[in-house]
């Protein structure tokens, strides 16, 4: 009938209050490299996990080569010829390439014929132009090599469609060039490819067509000749219909405020180690003054988490200097940093932010438990004080909870976030570092949190706000700085805010 390899029709998926995918239609032509673009939380991963059988959609149908199919597990999708190369390697680190590739193939034979399989794999990888050491444990190989192994593994199982989830995150430039060559040659052999990415350049260089998602909806599908930087950035960051954006965002005004004369926070040439999980920071320098909100715009995984954590745990500094209110804080512990008037709300509110089985009192106390006002003779906790502070917070932050003894796990996400925010305002603070305070919350809670941030700013405190939603950042920030690959790309004043320019820097476009 037509030439589609995969068609997803009217797919819907809801997680709690969040509509992750809203009637998405997505189709891939045979033998093309199809880019899938979007901000964090736009729904790219959800869509691909549905195709790969990790999630089941609430609504919608999947067609493979015109036939309707049901995919309940990755095992099903592998049988249908779909292979996925995950962002985080799913290889068994203790195994070498051969063992990883043959794992689970040919169920009926019990004997391991390493030599025979080795020849087959060698032949396949030679054909594909992908060479890698076959006998070295995968854990000792670089990210780029692991990726090659994952690709060969998928094709060894007969994959006709290859999904690459942000394949370039941990690749160096030359590895990216190699990958590109590989993809082109795969396409020549009849393989279809879905390429998930945030990076402008990669789309332009690699993709034949591109689908752009935003807030769970398809914003547009661009053919090769329509793919301009301008079109893509606009679709990624700017709604076609301005009203849609407005309805999804709270209405909060940012009043005039007086900036302090001296900066509250100074970072000079700050670098941190890069690890498997994070890219690390590279020579970051900036200042934040009292009475201003500085937003950090970045696609997640570009060093924004390192930025938040290095300030509250400066022991992890590789080099550089950090000052709070003029005092150098290099080498201080978290509690010592807090005692300088800094507080923090972490990215993952359940995993890093709360004591799930603890009550509200115990949760409010976290991070304040060493402060004199809560301690008697440095040993005994003044629970009465903690109680009154908790009740105060419940009132000030409209936490919907019966009393201070309520187990926090029983509260809704929004109320949990309010407790975490409230904890930051137990003392008057000079600097608040807040990481994605609004993610997954309903508009009214977001509005409440916005008002608190504005209030705090009005009282002369500084706020470093790491956000995942550029629209939100633009409403409330005095300045926005952009991080990309752990480097500071630029700082914009409010008067210079331009979605297009900022968005372009976030995805690695030219300055």
């Amino acid at each position, binding site marked *: 009938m037509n030439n589609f390899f995969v068609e997803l029709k009217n797919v819907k998926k809801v997680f709690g209050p969040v509509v992750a995918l809203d009637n998405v239609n997505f189709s891939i032509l045979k033998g093309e490299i199809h880019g899938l673009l979007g901000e964090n939380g736009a729904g790219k991963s959800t869509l691909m996990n549905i195709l790969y059988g990790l999630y089941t959609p609430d609504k919608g149908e999947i067609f493979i080569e015109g036939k309707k199919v049901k995919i309940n597990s990755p095992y099903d999708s592998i049988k249908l010829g779909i292979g996925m190369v995950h962002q985080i390697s799913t290889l068994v680190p203790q195994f070498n390439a051969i063992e990883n590739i043959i794992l689970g193939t040919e169920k009926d034979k019990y004997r391991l014929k390493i030599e025979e399989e080795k020849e087959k794999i060698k032949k396949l990888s030679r054909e594909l132009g992908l060479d890698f050491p076959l006998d070295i444990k995968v854990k000792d190989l670089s990210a780029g090599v692991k990726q090659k192994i994952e690709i060969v593994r998928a094709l060894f199982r007969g994959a006709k469609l290859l999904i690459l989830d942000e394949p370039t995150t941990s690749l160096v430039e030359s590895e990216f060039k190699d990958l590109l060559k590989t993809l082109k040659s795969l396409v020549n052999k009849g393989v279809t490819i879905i390429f998930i990415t945030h990076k402008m350049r990669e789309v332009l260089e690699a993709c034949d067509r591109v689908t752009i998602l935003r807030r769970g909806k398809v914003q547009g599908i661009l053919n090769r000749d329509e793919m301009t930087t301008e079109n893509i950035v606009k679709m990624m960051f700017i709604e076609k219909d301005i009203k849609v954006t407005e309805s999804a965002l709270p209405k909060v005004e940012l009043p005039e405020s007086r900036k302090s004369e001296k900066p509250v926070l100074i970072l000079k040439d700050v670098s941190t180690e890069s690890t498997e999980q994070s890219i690390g920071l590279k020579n970051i320098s900036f200042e934040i003054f009292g009475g201003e909100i500085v937003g950090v715009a970045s696609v997640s995984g570009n060093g924004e988490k390192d930025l938040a954590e290095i300030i509250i745990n400066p022991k992890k500094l590789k080099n550089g200097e950090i000052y709070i209110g003029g005092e150098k804080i290099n080498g201080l512990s978290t509690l010592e940093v807090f005692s300088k008037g800094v507080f923090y709300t*972490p990215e993952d509110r359940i995993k890093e932010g709360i004591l*799930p089985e603890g009550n509200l009192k115990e949760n409010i106390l976290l991070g304040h*438990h060493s402060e004199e006002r809560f301690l008697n003779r440095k*040993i*005994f906790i003044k629970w009465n004080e903690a109680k009154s502070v908790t009740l105060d917070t419940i009132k000030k932050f409209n936490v919907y909870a019966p009393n201070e003894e309520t187990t926090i*796990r029983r509260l809704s996400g929004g109320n949990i976030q309010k407790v975490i925010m409230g904890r930051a305002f137990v003392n008057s603070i000079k600097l608040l570092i807040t990481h994605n305070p609004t993610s997954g919350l309903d508009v009214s809670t977001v509005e409440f949190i916005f008002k608190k941030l504005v209030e705090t700013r009005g009282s002369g405190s500084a706020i470093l706000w790491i956000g995942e939603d550029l629209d939100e950042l633009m409403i409330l920030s005095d300045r926005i700085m952009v991080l990309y690959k752990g480097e500071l790309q630029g700082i914009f004043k409010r008067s210079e805010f331009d979605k297009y320019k900022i968005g372009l820097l976030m995805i690695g476009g030219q300055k």
Partner: protein
Amino acid sequence: MKNKDLFRVIIIYFLSIFFAFVVISIIAVLFRYDVIKVLRTLLTTSFKTSFGFQETIKKTIPLIFTTYAFTIPFMIKFFNIGGWGQMLFGGTITAVVGLTLPKIGINLPSFIMIPLLIITGILAGGFFALIAGFLVAKFDINPIISTIMLNFVAVQFLNFIATNPIYRDPYEGHPITLPLPKSGTLGFIFGIPYSIIFAIISIIFVYFLIKKTKIGYEITAIGYNLDAAQKYGINFQKTILITFFIAGALAGLGGTFEVINIHKKLIEGFAQTSGAQYGIFGVLTSLIVAGNPIGVPIAAFLMSVLLVGADALQRTMQIPVEMVFLSQALIVLFIVTFRERFLRRK
């Protein structure tokens, strides 16, 4: 919601104990014992005579100490199986100090000697547990392994002291030391050892430690969520060392009282009762109350009721004490399973 949970907990305990008793009854029937008499003896011996009650308290006291020794590290998800070794080591060092001082001509009055021996037990037990704490904090060696290895070290060390010509009682066949000087021992009141006072103090101490102090808060917070606790500035390594020290100190204190109050000398295998050692009973007791420090004294008392019943079964009906030990293990197995089944949280 809360009431529903409480109801479930009661059902869980009821069912677990019920099933365990069913198993006992089946074994009793198989080996032709009178089931009713077995169950009656098991449950009522402690309350029928004052001797039974005194015996129960005598077992409850050390059990409280070893149960805390397991419970406190368990709050930060570490398994201290070494309560027994820490008890043995605390008791052994106490005996060494108590016997050595008079030998070298230092005769202290009771009101100095007793506190000195108590502090000795606390420090010795605490030090011994700190080895395991250090091994996990610095070398990542699972405390299940290290504490059990150290148990065997403590057994041999006790044996070394009790057979040492300086301390050994030459007229005893078993490794037993000479008696401690009178100033270094505690007595009984109505057949109940004075150490009950210290057991009660320990209960209050643990309650205050966990509920009212900063370190207690840090232990609780780590138990709830290690990531959040560390992110908000709680030092995990330090807390490991502190919890192990406290655990060992309490177990060591328990050992001291067994030596200065119950036996008044050092005896090989002093920390044992009804077929097993107090460390193991402490683990069982703690798992029954899910590592909740407040439930410990009650559970320890109920365990001791079963142990006294077990002794009586052996005396009067020639039923091995291990039958009760087995049933306690079954109760724990049922409880941990049911708890996970019916109280599991997302």
